[in-house]
């Protein structure tokens, strides 16, 4: 009997649709003069288990935290969240979606969305007559 190739579940779903059950990573969002920054705690998640997409001004963070690679023996306590995770944010318009950067460091995902020129604060000089 030939084994059928398994297609990852996430790939079968249309973007913009959350998985059936998932956990929600803790996320901070802040704004500076030049960018909007989203940081999420994703301990144990490797880059290959993570997807960050922007479509129609919706930023989606999703992925899977699988079971540990090596069998750790008998589990005595299990507090880590496992399985699929999902988070979506509606972005205000006027972000330069081509310049979005995402980085994973020490279990923290940082997504940087540079503001388009129009959104940046402008200093208006007051002329003294």
């Amino acid at each position, binding site marked *: 009997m030939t084994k059928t190739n398994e297609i990852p579940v996430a790939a079968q779903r249309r973007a913009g649709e959350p998985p059936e059950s998932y956990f929600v990573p*803790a996320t901070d969002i802040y*704004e500076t003069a030049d960018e909007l920054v989203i940081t999420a705690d994703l*301990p144990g998640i490797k880059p290959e288990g993570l997807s960050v997409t922007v479509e129609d001004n919706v930023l989606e963070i999703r992925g899977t935290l699988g079971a540990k690679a090596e069998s750790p023996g008998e589990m005595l*306590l299990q507090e880590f969240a496992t399985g699929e995770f999902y988070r979506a944010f509606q972005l205000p318009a006027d972000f330069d979606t081509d310049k979005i950067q995402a980085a994973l460091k020490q279990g923290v995902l940082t997504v940087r969305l540079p503001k388009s020129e129009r959104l940046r604060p402008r200093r208006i000089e007051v002329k003294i007559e």
Partner: protein
Amino acid sequence: MPAATLASLREEMNDLLNRFWTGTAEPFGLAEWSPPLDVAETDEAIIVDVEVPGIDPATLDISVTGDVLTIRGEKHDQTGQEGRNYHRVERRYGSFTRSLTLPAQVEADKVDAKAHFGVLSIRLPKKDAARLRKVEIKAD
């Protein structure tokens, strides 16, 4: 034995939660947080994994006293940095202490810890006396 261990861990958790809710775990009114743990036991070792996202592993403090493992650390609060206007703060910051009564005696000087993708993994080898030994039954 494993069932009893699990029960004692659960008790410890409940204690921790109770202390948290009654406020005795916050001596100076600073809400401490405690990172999630995964604890596993094999024939040779106890393996404790701790979620430490955003914490430099070099700043973590791990100690074993008797059969108690203590992990201390601090996640530096960056929310006060100038020029940042926060819309949402869900991540926990500040210092934490997490202690755990180990289910077996361990070789304290052979404890090994490494961090990978925001997870600290501590391997505590069991003392010889605590290891599982199979007793062969002799049949005539």
